[in-house]
């Protein structure tokens, strides 16, 4: 595997040289491998959004640099522009970016900016719409006539349609009902399985991260607090609690059971694992 995105000693100050100067992220070193599903968690204000906006060159590092496929993105104007298409960034509440007359045109905005011809654009728009579960009848509608969840999906499709090497989603499920959340998470999963591309997901839901991520990055006060696999991270529950974070709900249940003296394992991070563990422990005792 090779790194798609690398951050080298990255620091970003907001309001540099003013009274309001704050270091949003400090000395970040990070490598995102090709094909990886990186989950980013961290308390609000820990610098997650600031970090990911460096990956496609929207924010310029105060010090340090970002490498895409080994090349510094700040090299030239062209390389920054190329980064926009290589790394598809979908902001929190992306529905406010919709502006075209039809959903189709809006999804096509990115591919058109890339200078693709009409056939290729059409193929990408339809593919992206299919990923997010918007059928052809939606494509002709005005984006402003959609429901909140549908708008969200259309907006995400607008980023997916650029077919970026790495797709970054900043809390894509925030503020949606459970059905809407599930829908979004499941198409992210499908998207990754089908394309095999890198996905970075920022989320406040430990459950979602545990379910989807192959690697987890924990941010705390602008710094990398931990990085590792789902098991490595969520086994350190004490440290996570101290940072104002949490473990998946199912892990909490098993921690509680253990405390009550039930002989269960506590390295349980998804509902499926939990189910199996319960069967293992109680299934046997029922038999006995």
């Amino acid at each position: 595997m090779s790194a798609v995105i690398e951050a080298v000693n990255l620091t970003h100050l907001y309001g540099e040289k003013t009274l309001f100067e704050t270091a949003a992220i400090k000395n970040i070193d990070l490598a995102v491998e090709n094909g990886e599903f990186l989950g980013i968690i961290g308390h609000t204000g820990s610098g997650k959004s600031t970090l990911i906006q460096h990956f496609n060159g929207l924010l310029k590092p105060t010090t340090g640099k970002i490498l895409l496929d080994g090349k510094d993105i700040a090299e030239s104007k062209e390389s920054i522009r190329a980064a926009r298409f290589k790394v598809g960034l979908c902001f929190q509440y992306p529905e406010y970016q919709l502006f075209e007359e039809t959903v189709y045109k809006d999804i096509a905005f990115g591919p058109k900016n890339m200078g693709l011809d009409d056939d290729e654009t059409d193929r990408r728009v339809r593919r992206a719409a299919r990923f997010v579960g918007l059928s052809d009848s939606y494509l002709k509608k005005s984006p402003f006539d959609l429901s909140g969840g549908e708008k969200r999906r259309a907006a995400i499709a607008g980023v997916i349609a650029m077919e970026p090497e790495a797709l970054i989603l900043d809390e894509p499920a925030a503020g949606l009902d459970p059905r809407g959340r599930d829908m979004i998470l499941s198409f992210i999963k499908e998207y990754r399985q089908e394309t095999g591309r890198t996905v970075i997901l920022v989320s406040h839901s430990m459950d979602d991260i545990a379910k989807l991520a192959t690697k987890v990055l924990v941010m705390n006060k602008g710094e990398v607090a931990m990085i590792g696999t789902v098991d490595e991270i969520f086994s350190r529950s004490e440290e996570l609690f101290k940072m104002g974070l949490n473990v998946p709900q199912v892990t909490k249940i098993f921690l509680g059971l253990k405390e009550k003296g039930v002989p269960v394992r506590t390295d349980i991070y998804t509902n499926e694992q939990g189910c199996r563990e319960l069967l293992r422990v109680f299934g046997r005792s029922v038999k006995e």
Partner: protein
Amino acid sequence: MIRDITIGQYLPGKSALHKMDPRVKIIVTFAFIIVIFMCKNFWSLGLMVLFTALCTILAGVPMRMMLKSLRPVMVILVFTGILNIFYTSGGNKLLEFWKITVTDKGIYTAVFMIVRIVCLIAGSSLLTYTTTPTMLTDAIERILSPLKVFKIQVHTLAMMMTLALRFIPTLIEEIERIMNAQKARGADLESGGFIKRAKALIPILIPLFISAFRRAYELAFAMECRCYRGGEGRTRMKQMKVKATDIVASAVTAALLGAVIFLNIYFKPVIG
């Protein structure tokens, strides 16, 4: 970048100037401006410069910020200086070429005018540096409230002003957000000719207007839900009280007025 645009450049602080009653502050600032215009020689103007400097220090406004507020009027300052140097008649000739003569009186006048404008800007900047925009509009509303007699809707005007001020930062943030989102989809806002740039604004402006209208509706609903029905019979959450500081400030300003009049009479005037 876009965030650097500040309207109502309030600098948080706890100085006596910050704590003054904004009504008194506005009136005192007006008096200050009038007094500055009354100055006729360097003695009285010097006194005002000293006073402005003292107030700046008292308010804890960094010199850098003060200079920043002068930047927009730089052109006017230079212009005033040049005009006064060349177009003042009388006095001793210092320099003469072609049709232009420079006299000592011209130079004095130029310096005098520049110092006067600097003082003026610094003084009024102090008002906005030490008072939040909402406090300012609130105070303006109260100062203008006698106009109600003439059926002028002072409260409505003030409310509109307050809301507008309140939403400037919100809109700026919104523009930044939308710009970033569209840039992430490869929108090119920086290159191309006029038409191309104007077209590039569409993806920004449409979402901006939509969200601005949505906000306006929401705010109107929220206000109605709380039974807002204009200014009649409304009481205030923040009462404004004239305190000792305000009385002292008024007294100092009155004293300045007296001193300036005295200095004007006692010393020879520089300007007509």
